[in-house]
């Protein structure tokens, strides 16, 4: 079975978000980039399934410029077999989805996995677009994925519960917890990752359908109003009479 796992390069979850002075771009200065945490579920589960099956390959795909390669190597160190980088700045979800669909089509992958969204742009879009571009089912967001032959059984989160879904390969799934326990690379993995193939390809077209014109930070809070613990009940009165939320 051939797995394709798509990963994004995102600011570390502890990053304090700031923008360039014209507010047009995220300020990368001093920021550490990591594999998108949601994508780690996809990566680890693909590796686990390959191990269970005892055969197959896990290919990591990233749409990004050369500065994403340390995280691609990290994915290889975690256990992916090879990697592809589409050499382009990821303009928007549609642009990225087109690149993934193009690679997936040419590579004949059975299962395409990714995180449910990236923690920077929070689109929750790419998986559905890839599924539609390829004309195959998308299961999003998936909390569990098991394979039996060419049939996958997934648990998809819905508001208020979950759906148990069965689909045949090929399909796309976006992943979230509690699918698996994401792995961290061990020393052997780090050493072998250096020699694993990382292919760089140029993008297919440049179509995008959205454009960010400005970023903004949320308005600053006015400051906390403290209520003494002894008279905690007064808080409830304030929430009703002052904040008007109960």
């Amino acid at each position, binding site marked *: 079975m051939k797995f394709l796992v798509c990963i994004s390069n995102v*600011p570390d*979850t*502890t*990053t*304090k*978000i700031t923008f360039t002075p014209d507010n047009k771009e*995220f300020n990368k200065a001093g920021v550490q980039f990591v594999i998108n*945490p949601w994508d780690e579920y996809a990566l680890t589960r693909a590796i686990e399934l390959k191990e269970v099956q005892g055969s197959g390959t896990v290919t990591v795909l990233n749409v990004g410029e050369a500065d994403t390669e340390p995280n691609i190597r990290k994915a290889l160190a975690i256990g992916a077999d090879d990697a592809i980088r589409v050499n382009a700045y990821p303009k928007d979800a*549609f642009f990225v*989805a087109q690149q993934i669909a193009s690679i997936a089509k040419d590579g004949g992958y059975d299962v395409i996995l990714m995180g449910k969204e990236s*923690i*920077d*742009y*929070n689109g*929750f*879009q*790419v998986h*559905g*677009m890839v*599924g*539609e571009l390829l004309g195959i*089912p*998308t*299961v*999003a967001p998936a909390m569990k994925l098991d394979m039996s032959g060419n049939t996958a059984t997934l648990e*998809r989160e*819905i*508001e*208020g519960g979950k*759906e*148990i*879904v069965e*689909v045949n390969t090929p399909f796309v799934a976006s992943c979230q*917890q*509690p699918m698996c326990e994401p792995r961290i690379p061990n020393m052997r993995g780090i050493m072998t990752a250096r020699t694993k193939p990382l292919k760089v390809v140029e993008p297919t077209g440049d179509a995008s*359908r*959205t454009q*960010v*014109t*400005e*970023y*903004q*930070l*949320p308005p600053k*809070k006015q400051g*906390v*109003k*403290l*209520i*003494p*613990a002894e008279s*905690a*009940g007064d*808080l*409830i009165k304030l*929430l*009703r009479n002052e*904040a008007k*939320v*109960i």
Partner: protein
Amino acid sequence: MSVLVVVECDKGEVKKSSLEVASYGSQVAQLLGTTATAVAVGEASEASLAQLGEQGISKVLYDAEPRLKDFVNGAYTKLIAAAAQQEDAKVLVLANSNVGASVGSRLAVRLQASLATNVVELPKNDGGQFTVKRGAFSGKAFAEVVLTGDRKIIAVKKNSIEAQHEAGKNATVESFSAQLSDVDFADAPKQVVLQDQAGGILLPEADKVVSGGRGMKGPENWGLIEDLAKALGAATACSKPVSDVDWRPHHEHVGQTGITVSPNLYIACGISGAIQHLAGVNSSKVIVVINKDPEAPFFKAADYGIVGDVFDVLPKLTQAVKELN
């Protein structure tokens, strides 16, 4: 040309987030000088659909095919695309729910449309430039996004717009068929399992949320959280460490890598306020923090705070709510 609103229904009723979406769609239609039609998915009663007139919807399309009761990505996409074609919809509005966003991304390809999810305000249409404001960086920022395609799809974040209500207005309900076949139901669920909800309130839909962290010391103490939530009519939630150690189920985990919520009231009990947790809750209208550590970073993000032991404070709050009711 019209605006098409996708309305999600459950057990015969229109979901709260879909009432917001219907209002949003009606206001977009006004902005563009056209009318708003809805297409309903899920299990809907005709009476509840007709009531969407109160949110400014003129007509509702409904396919009563029984297999559409539960979410089926392929079938929902085909149904909504057919409705969009019939109505010549230039703007589609959906809830930023797992259903809305899942279908929205497939529709964006099928209808060759621009898609913006997580949208928090009404769009601006200045000089032909259609701009929406959306949450980004897990709630730590916002982005102004121009939708450059001829068709636009907007997924509206819950609780970011108040549902308008004009009593007594009715929408026309029309039956609609997208000629769905078995192929469209290839990803139909084999089984639907509903979660056990405290007080029956779904966290993503909740107007009020009471959330607990490691300061609650163990799952056996969650009764205190549940008591306050029940008194307030709130949903319960938790921080990541709590769900990681299985004190609470994963579907209650709020934060950057969990559920992002934006209720009117978020009460954080024994949660220190790590940046990843704040990212998931900081678009809440009012934040209350209860923590015995006065240096807990969460107090900086709070509107109201109590420095004290959650085990003393929570029963007092529950009692005060009961007295108020």
